């Protein structure tokens, strides 16, 4: 009997492939949100596993804030090309220029402005479903989200009236203008993602590994020195050996001092870690309900 037993990664993988194929079977115009980050890299491998030898039957969509790490965009474009996939990039800058997104006075972060940019892309291509790489272990509001997360015609998530999900039966039915966000990695942890990257020998952007970088100390974390918010004379700047644990915008992604140069090193580091992955994201610290508020407004 013991031959017929799945370990945790095999279980998570078959669950995610099942969800990917449900998306292909149930929706007319699905897309896959691909940023080049580690979670969406796993999504692409799962899509290959779900759909090969056929072509992956959905385009890749990325909302470019204009504040991305250049290494990330380079990787994103290359990986999409290698897979023969269609990559659609929609820029926050263009959404601002077209009046679809409006920065608040003095607002530098593009975090909030990703929302109208994404919703405009969904409308432009009439996507009825977007697959995303979010995981429930990332954050408390995410812990309550479904695999198939229903959004109304304004792209809003209503945590109090989510569709119950029972067994492996996902209700994918929508009315026109409504949208589904689907999260095949819901049950994965940060450790699972890295173990999967190791098992599948997946390439990840170089910034996940230790490198030398000029860093500026802000709000108790080291951020990359960047042109968007250059260091002020009063701020401490140092060259450090760092890596990113989670990738957000270049102005808000905390760097961790780390010698981890390989995936094995990263796994060992996470096993010993004493703070969560999102502990290094300034955008989540704004308030205890920061993620909940952004999701209700249509965030990934």
């Amino acid at each position, binding site marked *: *009997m*013991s031959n*017929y*037993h*799945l*370990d*945790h990664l*095999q279980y*998570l*993988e*078959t*669950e995610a*492939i*099942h969800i990917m*194929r*449900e998306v*292909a*079977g149930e929706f007319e115009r699905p897309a896959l949100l691909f940023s080049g980050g580690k979670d969406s890299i796993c999504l692409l491998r799962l899509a*290959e*596993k*779900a*759909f*090969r*030898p*056929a*072509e992956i039957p959905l385009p890749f969509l990325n909302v470019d804030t204009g504040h991305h790490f250049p290494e990330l965009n380079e990787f994103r474009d290359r990986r999409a090309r290698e897979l023969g996939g269609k990559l659609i990039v929609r820029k926050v800058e263009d959404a601002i220029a077209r009046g679809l997104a409006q920065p608040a006075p003095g607002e530098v972060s593009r975090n909030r402005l990703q929302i109208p940019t994404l919703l405009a892309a969904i409308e432009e291509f009439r996507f009825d479903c977007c697959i995303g790489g979010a995981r*429930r*272990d990332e*954050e*408390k*509001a995410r*812990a*309550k989200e479904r695999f198939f997360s229903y959004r109304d015609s304004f792209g809003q998530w209503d*945590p*109090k009236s*989510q*569709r*119950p*999900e*029972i*067994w*492996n*039966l996902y*209700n994918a*039915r*929508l*009315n026109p203008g409504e949208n589904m966000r689907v999260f095949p990695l*819901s*049950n994965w*942890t940060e*450790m*699972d993602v890295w173990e999967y990257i190791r098992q599948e020998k997946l390439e990840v952007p170089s910034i996940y590994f230790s490198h030398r970088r000029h860093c500026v100390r802000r709000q108790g974390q080291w951020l990359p020195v960047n042109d968007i918010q250059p260091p002020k004379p009063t701020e401490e700047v140092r060259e450090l050996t760092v890596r990113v644990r989670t990738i957000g915008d270049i102005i808000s992604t905390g760097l961790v001092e780390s010698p981890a140069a390989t995936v094995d090193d990263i796994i060992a580091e996470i096993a010993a*870690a*004493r*703070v*969560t992955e999102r*502990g290094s994201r300034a955008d989540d610290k704004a308030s*205890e*309900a920061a993620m*909940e508020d952004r999701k209700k407004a249509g965030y990934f």
Partner: protein
Amino acid sequence: MDLLRFNTCGSVDDGKSTLIGRLLYDSKSLMEDQIEALERSADITGGGQVNLANLTDGLRAEREQGITIDVAYRYFATPRRKFIVADTPGHVQYTRNMVTGASTANLSIILVDARAGVIEQSRRHTAIASLLRIPHLVIAVNKMDLVDWSEARFNEIRAEFEQFLPRLDIKDVKFIPMSALNGDNVVTPSAHTPWYGGPTLLSHLETVHIASDWNLQGLRLPVQWVNRPNQPTDPRLHDFRGFSGQIAGGIVRAGQKVMVLPSGITTTVKEIHTYDGPVAEAFCPQSVTLVLAHDVDVSRGNMIIGPDDLPGSASDLHAKVCWMHPRALQPGKKYWLKHTTHTVQAAVTEITHRINISSLEQEPAPAGLALNDIGEIRLRTSAPLVFDGYATNRLTGSFILIEQGTHATVAAGMLHPPRELVRPEDADFVI
């Protein structure tokens, strides 16, 4: 590493969230920033006392009202196993939420307050676990510190449970005395219970035998997606036609005979294709792509089965349902019914009775079925379903009902065993 999925249930103050918080805390699965956030919220809502329940109560309304709105999922690992926890609230919507959280669980933990003993909620939770056929059950007798760690009290509660357990179909039940608040017998053995020789909760979760929780009898592959590469230039792929799906029961072997339902056509498995190369056999719940020896017509919603172990086929169905929506079940109204990868229209022809969840007795249901009710119904579908009884196979014996128009998921259904099996002699299309 093995993965165990469990859910916790109890009524409002039994300390479910505290128990999960304790498991995370004592198994060192909590990170400094989570502990920090706990301490921050302690200053606001807890009068300075760290509240482990705040770890799982994720939404603002929940923290403000001190309740849990919905099923929350938590993840932790020990060197022996990985765990997925569904924390299901015990208040108003308990049945709906518990059914949701328990539907994918290997094990349910039912919390009982040692002072209150077995209350109606405890019976309900146990009955639901039994209806859903959760393979393993733990009765966590919590707050033992408040009854002076009395062995007699523990035995009394255990005896109460054992009175109604025989009426339920649960194979494996374990009773553990504990205090989630103080951590006794959750992760570390308690000095207060020298009379208890069993494992701590965590140690039980780490060792309970789950390898046989999936159904390995009778091949069932509901077809999700037809894999047809559009590559006329590559001769190897030009004729590739694969049928993709997650095996919902049994084992499939290359070269074996299979039947496609509902058409009844039989053929053989030419190849079990996976991204990592062809395999000789695959089993439930693996996701695979089957290439068949003959060019047969197969589409999403069909089921590929092993001809030795036949499922039922019918459009008049008998099932237990848990009603999950404030708009009550309306006989005669058309709903969408999703069963495996197959969606059909269905109308409820009769509500035969309601199940009293505390006593598991059948009662008349003159008022129909409302939110959180469990009942027995008959329904008629627009096309026959190929199915098994829920007791035989949780994946091919379950369905959901979806309201037309709003598309709300309104019910979870568990099918009774088929009265008639598919008859292979009717299938004269043998190739």
